């Protein structure tokens, strides 16, 4: 998530997995469920209108939450602590946090106007690389 300055992120799964293909664990991963229940499934305009269209906004806000260091540790996402290539994981996370906050601000100012560069944040590290 914050490798834009140094591009070799540590990889936990690729290459390290004893078996190349795994049957998805039950229960399914939260990311898998969210991308389906929030982004797929038939949309019917119900009586109570909730703007779920801004998935990007939503996922960024979630990410903000996850990216705050304590919270992330709580959830077991603490790989940066053990990775020597990330000299200051906490600082990176704070920078990432700051960047995401700006993005949320932009999105809230111009709702939906950014769908085109939608992947700018979700696939940030891929985009940065290109």
């Amino acid at each position: 998530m914050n490798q834009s300055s140094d591009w070799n992120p540590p990889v936990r799964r690729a290459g390290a997995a004893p078996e190349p293909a795994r049957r998805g664990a039950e229960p399914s991963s939260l990311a898998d469920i969210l991308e389906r229940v929030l982004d797929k499934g038939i949309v019917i305009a119900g009586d109570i209108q909730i703007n779920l269209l801004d998935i990007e906004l939503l996922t960024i806000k979630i990410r903000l939450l996850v990216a705050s260091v304590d919270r992330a540790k709580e959830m077991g996402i603490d790989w940066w602590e053990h990775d020597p290539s990330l000299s200051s994981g906490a600082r990176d996370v704070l920078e990432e946090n700051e960047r995401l906050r700006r993005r949320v601000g932009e999105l809230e100012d111009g709702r939906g106007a950014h769908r085109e560069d939608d992947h700018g944040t979700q696939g940030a590290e891929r985009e940065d690389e290109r």
Partner: protein
Amino acid sequence: MNGSLATWLYAVTAAPEDGAPPRGLTGVADEPVRLVESAGLAAVVGSVPLEDFGEDALRGHLEDLEWLERTARAHHRVINGAARHGQVIPLRFATLYHDDDRVRAMLQERRDDFTATLRRVAGRTEWGVKAYVDPRSFLPDPDEPTDGEESPGTAYLMRRRAQRQDQETAHLRATERAEEIHAALAALAVATAAHPPQDTALAAYEGWMVLNNSYLVPDALGEEFTALVTGLGERYPAITLEVSGPWPPYSFTAPPKRAEDAQPEETPS
């Protein structure tokens, strides 16, 4: 008390012959799940308190990851449970009506769409396949270190540029492999849909997710499909493949008529 409830919709299905709701399922508000029938269809629904599921309350809750996780999982659990009793059309999270009559009216009105969609996904199942790579496995061989007379600054910049180019090469190579994998998988599927790469923090992975697709596979080919994923994983040792499913057909029930809307089918990720 009745006035403070709304009807949360999970899925639409063909009305069961016995009219019985899927047993033992509880929904997003721990409420018992029931059926609202009309026009030969049934909506799988639950009554939820407006206090928690009204517009403002929902908006607040949506930013609470714990709430969202719990509720999204509950929504999915009901859809999954209903799918065990027959083909379902999953509905988007937070589809809410004021009461059951409004749900019946909606079923009536969209009857043809729903019926056609149910027919389209009948006997087929969604499988998810993700591919992860360690970018380092796709890097070109390191060039001879240029130990010329450049100033440290120039050398640094050149090194940075080389790294960036290598990075692009690695990404291209990984993406090409992912496309080959996708093509092999798509051969067993009647439809495919691409999702954006998942958020690294949320999904807790590192490296690149070069494939995150859904495949609508005939039930009879399910085993073959998962075996193919395993086989592909062996054929491409630098790529870690992960299969998830079977899923209710979340990614394949949108109306097929949004051609200008950049059909998800063709978006390689």
